[in-house]
């Protein structure tokens, strides 16, 4: 009886979440459709620039910026996060493990605005002293890496903790040294956790708005190098949604839809990696 009750409660909860996502997706699609029909998908990639109040709708530079920010952050944060998790699990003395893990949990829970503010007040001036104008793709990548580093670390560390002890026993009994064991046994064994951590981090990076808006300079242009300012899709929505009307508003909804699609794609890629159980 209680089991049935639980089944129903859980089922209902799942249904609510799933339908909420569906409602959001349908809403975005609905808001985008008029503009898509009127402007046409092609112009979002081929117009001469982004000034929607004057009928120019090229969002490609912002897509490029968002993808570069996400990829850059993952490239910087993921290796550091994996190394940190391995250090905490296999190398650190136990008092370090406890405090280390607690600090990382606090970092993961910190509101992104705090990271943004830090970036704006500390990081951007430092970069500006080196390469003007400071607010740049680089600043965005660094702030985002800092933000997603604890997220990835926690997921990977949980994976390491949940990994069966018998793999470690087997490795040691086979006279493998610790470094080799980590590299060839442990990391491959927990690649699902690593993939999950990276997906979560990447999704957080591409969805981040406030922190990115504060440090990237928000110029709509494809960056020539790491020190050029960029505007992410999310920042664009935040900066312009407040006053956008008509097709301008529609274009912003299309950007949101695109972000949703990217996140879904990330989850699917993760799913593929996890289900692909055996290597070579």
């Amino acid at each position, binding site marked *: 009886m209680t089991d049935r009750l639980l089944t129903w409660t859980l089922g209902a909860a799942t249904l609510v979440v799933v339908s909420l996502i569906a409602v959001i997706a349908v809403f975005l699609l609905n808001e985008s459709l008029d503009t898509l029909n009127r402007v046409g998908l092609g112009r979002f990639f081929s117009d001469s620039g982004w000034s929607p109040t004057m009928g120019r709708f090229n969002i490609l530079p912002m897509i490029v910026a968002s993808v570069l920010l996400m990829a850059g952050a993952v490239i910087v944060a993921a290796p550091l996060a994996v190394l940190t998790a391995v250090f905490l699990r296999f190398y650190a003395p136990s008092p370090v493990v406890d405090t280390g893990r607690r600090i990382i949990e606090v970092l993961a829970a910190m509101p992104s605005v705090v990271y*943004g503010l830090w970036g704006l007040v500390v990081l951007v001036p430092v970069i500006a002293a080196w390469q003007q104008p400071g607010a740049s793709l680089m600043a965005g990548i660094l702030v985002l890496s800092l933000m997603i580093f604890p997220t990835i670390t926690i997921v990977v560390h949980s994976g390491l903790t949940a990994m069966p002890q018998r793999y470690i026993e087997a490795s040691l009994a086979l006279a493998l040294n610790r470094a080799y064991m980590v590299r060839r046994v442990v990391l491959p064994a927990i690649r699902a956790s690593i993939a999950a951590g990276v997906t979560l981090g990447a999704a957080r990076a591409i969805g981040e708005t406030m922190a990115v808006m504060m440090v990237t*300079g928000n110029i709509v242009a494809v960056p020539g190098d790491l020190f050029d300012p960029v505007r992410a899709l999310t920042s664009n929505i935040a*900066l312009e949604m407040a*006053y956008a009307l008509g097709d301008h508003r529609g274009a912003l909804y299309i950007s949101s839809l695109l972000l949703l699609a990217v996140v879904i794609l990330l989850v699917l890629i993760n799913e593929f990696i996890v289900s692909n159980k055996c290597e070579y």
Partner: protein
Amino acid sequence: MKCLFACGRITVLALVAYWIGFGSSHAGENLRLLATGSSTVAPVMAELARKYEQAHPGARIDVQTGGSSRGIADMINGLCDMGMVSRDLKPSERVLHAYTIAHDGIAVITHRDNPIDVLDRARLIEIYRGEVRDWGDVGGAAGVPIVVVNKAAGRSTLELFLHYLDLSPDQVHSDIIIGDNQQGLKTVAGNRSGIGYVSIGAALHAQQEGVPIKLLTLEGAEPTIANVTAGNYPITRPLNIVTRKPAQGAVSELLAFIHSDEGASVIESLNFVPVR
């Protein structure tokens, strides 16, 4: 940084805000009002609201930012009780009713360590068109690139400033685009070669708090409260509250408070010029 929360507004939140704002205007005893819009007006409004709430227990006034255009758009869509707009209404917006609560100017700011103290309009135009890229060309330190900080489209500070320079948004070359006043202040404070423009009230307030910025003299007029009051400063604007219908009930009571001596002293304490 109240303003930061509002900018990342999602539509779902807007719906919630709509529900709160709409439902509460009729709530009688537990009066709730929602003001949205200009990030220049918001700190003034928030401080006024705090004082008003102290005098009227049970009243609650929420303040959200997003730029003057949001204030207009929210008012038209019935999403708020008061729209905050830091400029005059445009002809197309005249269906709304505007109540001026204070006057403000726009100050051109640089880092405190920048040797420049004065710029004329012609130099400013060259800088914002990207024709002059080096501080040395306008009397500052040679070899230091000028980092132009501009406001995002839809912000009335931008519209007023560009109107003053007689530039269209397309003509402006910017290195960094910022959202609200606070981000502008922090960006310029963190970049020794930056130049930007923000509300005089916000800039003076930040300067008092120790933020390392400098307000430039424009056309011989220093950006001060006195000069704005006297009408000597070239870029001034009214800070308005807009409503769809003529103000009545709670909103008109609040306006009466704002125009009282007590309201005026709050406005002065934030470096804006009260309307008597």
